[in-house]
C-alpha cells in the first residue's frame, strides 16, 4: 500500500500544501510516492483506512498512514512526507540524525509544525477554529493593516466557539 497523507480539506492552507505534495509525489516512473487525501466527513471511511484512527483525531493534525498499519502525525507526518517524495528523501534522512539519543532536527520540525498550525488563520484559513492566544494580536494587526490600505476583506477566525468558560468567543 502506498502511504496516505490525510489532510483537512476545509483548511485552505492545508489544501495548498496538499496540492504541492500531490504534484511533488509523482516519481519518474509515474507512480506517486504518497497518496494525498482529504479527510472528508465520513467517520467510517477513516476507520476503514486505519481502525486506530478516528475522525476527530484525523482533523486534529495531519497523519500519514503507512503500509504496515502504523501512523505518523503532526511533525512526524511532515518528515514522513519528505521521505515519500522523490526529491526530498534526503531531508528525511537529515531529520533522522540522532545526537546524544535525541533527534534535534526532528524537534525543530515538530516546533515548526506547531507554529504553522497556529498561524494558519493568518495565512488565510477561515476554518481552523479560534486562533491561539499568541496569534490573536497578530491577527488583529493584520486586519488593521488591511483596513488601512483599503483591503475590505479581513482575516476571520472560524465560526467555532471555544467556550471553556462558557462564553461565546467568536462568531
Amino acid at each position, binding site marked *: 500500500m502506498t502511504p496516505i497523507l490525510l489532510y*483537512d480539506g*476545509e*483548511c485552505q492552507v492545508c489544501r495548498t500544501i496538499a496540492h504541492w505534495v500531490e504534484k511533488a509525489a509523482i516519481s519518474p516512473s509515474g507512480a506517486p510516492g504518497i497518496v494525498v487525501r482529504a*479527510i472528508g*466527513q465520513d*467517520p*467510517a471511511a477513516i476507520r476503514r483506512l486505519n481502525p486506530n484512527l478516528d*475522525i*476527530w483525531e*484525523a*482533523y*486534529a493534525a495531519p497523519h500519514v498512514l503507512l503500509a504496515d498499519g502504523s501512523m505518523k502525525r503532526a511533525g512526524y507526518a511532515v518528515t514522513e512526507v519528505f521521505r515519500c517524495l522523490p526529491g526530498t528523501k534526503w531531508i528525511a534522512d537529515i531529520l533522522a540524525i540522532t545526537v546524544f539519543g535525541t533527534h534535534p532536527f526532528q524537534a525543530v520540525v515538530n516546533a515548526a509544525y506547531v507554529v504553522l498550525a497556529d498561524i494558519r488563520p493568518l495565512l488565510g484559513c477561515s*476554518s*481552523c*477554529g*479560534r486562533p491561539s492566544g499568541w496569534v490573536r494580536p497578530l491577527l488583529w494587526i493584520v486586519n488593521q493593516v488591511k483596513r488601512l490600505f483599503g483591503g475590505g476583506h479581513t482575516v476571520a477566525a*472560524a*465560526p*467555532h*466557539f*471555544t*467556550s*471553556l468558560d*462558557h*462564553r*461565546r*468567543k*467568536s*462568531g
Partner: protein
Amino acid sequence: MNADERQEDGITTLTGDTFERMVLQGRGPIAVEFMSYSCSHCGAIEPILQQAAALLKPQETIFRVNIAVERELAQGFEILGTPTIVLFLDGTEIGRVEGPSPEISSLLAQLTQPFAH
C-alpha cells in the same frame, strides 16, 4: 434507521432529509448538536456529549448535524458557530446553547433545564 441516519457512536447523525421527520415531527425533548469534525471545541465536548446522551436516554434524544455537510440546514437555523446545541420540544425550538461547557454536570443542566419550565 436508513443510510441517512448514521450512528457511528451513541449519537445519530441527521441529514437535511431526515431532520424534519426525526426532529420537527419528533415527540418530546430533543437536542440537536450542530457541529463539524474540524472544530476542536466540538471534539473536546464529544466524549462529554456521549456521556450525556447515554444518561438522558430515553427521556431525551440527542442528535448531531454536521454543518460541513448540511450547510443549508445550519443556515436555516442561523447557526453562527460550532458547537451549537438547539433544544426542541415536540418539534418546536425552545432554546439553544452556544459553545456548551465540556463538563458533564454543566452540560446535563444545559440540556435538561429548558425542558423543566
